[in-house]
């Protein structure tokens, strides 16, 4: 359900960088720990983008798997279920190596061809 709020965050971030140009593609990196459902995000993005520079833009999502690293014993592993204790040493001092991303990586914008001609 938070895909709606996240869609607004994407559109706002893109608007900041589009500098008035129409956006055709938004590339997003989404970690699995963000619990984002790609289809749902796409649905809301299309909706929230209406009337903005992102209207009609395609949302390309790269899904990043979740990897954890134990600061106690150095063990690194991939998780599919939310279990954050180290399976090797049972330590709780565990950091997220990847899987927490929610980044706009790049956008594709339309430029008028004659810019700069005199």
């Amino acid at each position, binding site marked *: 359900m938070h895909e709606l709020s996240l869609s607004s965050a*994407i559109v706002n971030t893109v608007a900041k960088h589009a500098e008035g140009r129409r956006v055709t593609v938004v590339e997003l990196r989404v970690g699995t720990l963000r619990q984002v459902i790609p289809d749902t995000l796409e649905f809301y993005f299309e909706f929230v983008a209406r009337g903005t520079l992102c209207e009609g833009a395609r949302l390309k999502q790269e899904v990043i798997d979740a990897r954890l690293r134990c600061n106690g014993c150095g063990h690194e592993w991939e998780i599919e279920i939310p279990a954050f204790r180290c399976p090797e040493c049972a330590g709780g001092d565990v950091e997220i190596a990847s899987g927490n991303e929610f980044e706009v990586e790049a956008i594709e914008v339309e430029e008028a061809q004659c810019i700069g001609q005199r």
Partner: protein
Amino acid sequence: MHRTKVRIVEDALDANNTIASANRADFDRAGVKVVNFMGAPGAGKTALLERVVADLRGVRVGVLEGDVEGSMDADRLAHLHVPVTQLNTGAGFGGECHLDANMVRSAMPALALEEIDLLLVENVGNLVCPAEFRIGENARVMVSAITEGEDKPLKYPLMFRACELVIVNKVDLLPHLDFDLDKLLYNIDAVHPDVETIVVSARSGQGVEAWREWLLRIAAHAPQEAIA
């Protein structure tokens, strides 16, 4: 027309975090510690505030009530004689399901920060979105009532990880429910190892003293890590 690719690499929530940091700076300047209080609708957030705000041993407390509509929660707190500010999110996109940094910023002038030491912000009842949006708080608390079931940490890990304290509420109902408290605590620890937990009943008062002590500790020396 031709197309250009622009590389950005920016967390989509940066804009919110920037405003949250500005909020924090304002709170710091006023000497006010802020707690973001989250949980599902009906978990007992307001009841847990009612239990403690009237007696925080000299710490002057204010409450910011976030709701989509209405002022029922603020009205409930009115008789406790602490300043309560209502913030409705209904003006947002069809009624926002969470507070964000900008909403809290807009409420700032109404907060009378010079009159309080501790601001308790009751977020909109929701186990998902509030976890994504920092508001400038020093610490985050989530409440999980045992009526919600033992599996909630596994279903909403984002929320159970986005807090420094988990309060397990409504334990006075334990004799009446098929509920395994150890299993819930085990699941909380699996999702957020070593997170602090307090088992309470807002109704009977069990555990409320530990909740009060926790707030007093935050008021005395709150964590100062940056927002993001």
